[in-house]
């Protein structure tokens, strides 16, 4: 029975993935039965379009989570980066391409900040990003001095370009996701990320530069968060004070639903995260159609996170047979 243990794991993982597909299908058709409006291609494209900013943010965050870290500053980065860019654009008349470039740069810098705090100062990623979350938001709020910045209409028009119902930004988000997925599965860096997430000590001993991997993961998270923020502000046509608040929570929810383990190492961007984001949005827009108030969304997300995390911890317990388990955070 040499293969029993490994087989058990593989079985569980493939069950999890197919479970995702199943859930996606169930949710979609379930809601379609409940409201006639749901089952339509336009509607599908609508919520896919709405999920684009989150898709960016969650994609970057996934890399950090795969490496066994957390980055809850993504919401604030998604706020700060567009704030800087739009301030330069609107208040100082910078050319558009440069402003966009600055947005990305801010994201990278934020990621660098996080990465350095975690790798050099050796602070826990959750405390570190809790702190930077506040700092970034504070900086952003200070820059806008409490006012909303309106963006030129060309930008919001750009974001709503569609081809017969299919918004082009859905394609962009998918391209980014697939790109990062390829990086994750085909490049050495991507494999290191999962390896570090599974067992950083073993990696260190094997000669992998764990700090560099972690630093890069935070850089990616910051960069993608800024892209997400950029797109969100384009969709809304403005940069507002409360933009991005709570985004880290929704991103985490979609990551966890997508089968990515918070303990690191396990999970995929495609189809994992992709399905996670869409399932979450499907459930929320479905509930919306049913007339459920948006105030319930936190409950929904919380409930989803709990169930997905429960399954995740079950998996950890099942595949760690024989060892005394620990309760440390």
């Amino acid at each position: 029975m040499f293969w029993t243990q490994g087989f058990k794991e593989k079985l569980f993982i493939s069950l999890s993935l197919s479970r995702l597909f199943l859930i996606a299908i169930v949710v979609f058709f379930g809601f379609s039965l409940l409201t006639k409006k749901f089952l339509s291609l336009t509607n599908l494209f609508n919520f896919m379009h709405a999920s684009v900013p989150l898709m960016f943010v969650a994609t970057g965050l996934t890399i950090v989570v795969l490496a066994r870290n957390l980055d809850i500053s993504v919401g604030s980065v998604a706020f700060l980066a567009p704030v800087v860019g739009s301030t330069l654009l609107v208040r100082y008349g910078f050319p558009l391409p440069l402003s966009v470039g600055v947005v990305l740069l801010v994201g990278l810098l934020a990621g660098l900040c996080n990465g350095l705090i975690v790798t050099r100062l050796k602070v826990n990623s959750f405390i570190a990003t809790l702190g930077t979350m506040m700092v970034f938001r504070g900086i952003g709020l200070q820059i806008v001095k409490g006012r909303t910045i309106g963006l030129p209409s060309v930008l919001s028009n750009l974001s709503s370009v569609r081809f017969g119902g299919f918004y082009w930004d859905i394609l962009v988000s998918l391209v980014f996701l697939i790109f990062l997925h390829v990086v994750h599965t085909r490049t050495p860096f991507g494999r290191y990320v999962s390896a570090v997430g599974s067992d950083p000590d073993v990696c260190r001993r094997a000669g992998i530069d764990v700090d560099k991997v972690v630093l890069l993961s935070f850089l990616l998270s910051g960069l993608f968060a800024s892209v997400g923020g950029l797109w969100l502000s384009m969709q809304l046509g403005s940069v507002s004070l409360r933009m991005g608040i709570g985004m880290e929570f929704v991103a985490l929810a979609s990551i966890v639903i997508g089968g990515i383990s918070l303990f690191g190492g396990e999970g995929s961007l495609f189809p994992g995260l992709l399905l996670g984001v869409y399932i979450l949005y499907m459930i929320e827009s479905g509930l919306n159609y049913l007339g459920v108030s948006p105030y319930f969304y936190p409950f929904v997300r919380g409930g989803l996170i709990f169930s997905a995390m429960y399954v995740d911890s079950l998996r950890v317990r099942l595949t760690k047979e024989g060892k005394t388990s620990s309760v440390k955070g």
Partner: protein
Amino acid sequence: MEDWREASRKVVLEVKGLCKFFGGIKAVNNVDFKLYEREIVGIVGDNGAGKSTLIKVLSGVYEKTAGKIFVHGQEVEIRNPGDARRLGIETVYQDQGLIPIFDAASNLFLGREKLQEGFLGRVFKLVDDKFMIQETERTLSSLGIDIKDARSKVLYLSGGQRQTVAIGRAVYWKGKILIFDEPTNNLGVKQERRVLELIKRIRDELGASIIIISHNIAHIFEVVDRIIVLRNGEKVGEKLKTETNPAEIVAMITGVS
């Protein structure tokens, strides 16, 4: 292995057909052995031979996959460390199993703290520090260690002193079957000597039966009465110390003869 002593001495612990599998990995495979009263048995083997796993089964950290365990002739089930302790099996682990920020007394009594009498004591489960410190000082000095400050955290103690605290814990709780996992690891030469002498004294003065795991053949030969050799989870040899020599034991460990 027939032995004139077998008839006259009591068997304190016996293991028959013991197996511990982790999925497809047979860490311990069909091991038999007996532990007699007042003797020190050394279990040796290469890395991965199953020594650590075997004693973890005996001390309740792992649950056996198959086989039988007998303590004082009675068949027993050891499902968790508490069961093992209740049977009088106390273990001194490789990393001592001490809490660094606690003092010696708190470590000795961890999990079995002495509570204060009296109404308040019982309601809030207040710990009786005075009692625990007294007992600890008494135990440690009887083991020949003068802990200058019983109230200081064990992480300030030297490796040898910490090892003694760990041993003190096993002794204090009246372990009749003591298991030492690599007791001389990470110790200086003088401290190694002290620990080995201590183990012998525990056997003599307290009448305990002791199992020692070590990969240091020289140390094994210094203190044990009998040697059991494991290789790939199976018992490949058992010899009285007086009837063998290090070279033979090493040959049995590596399987090259």
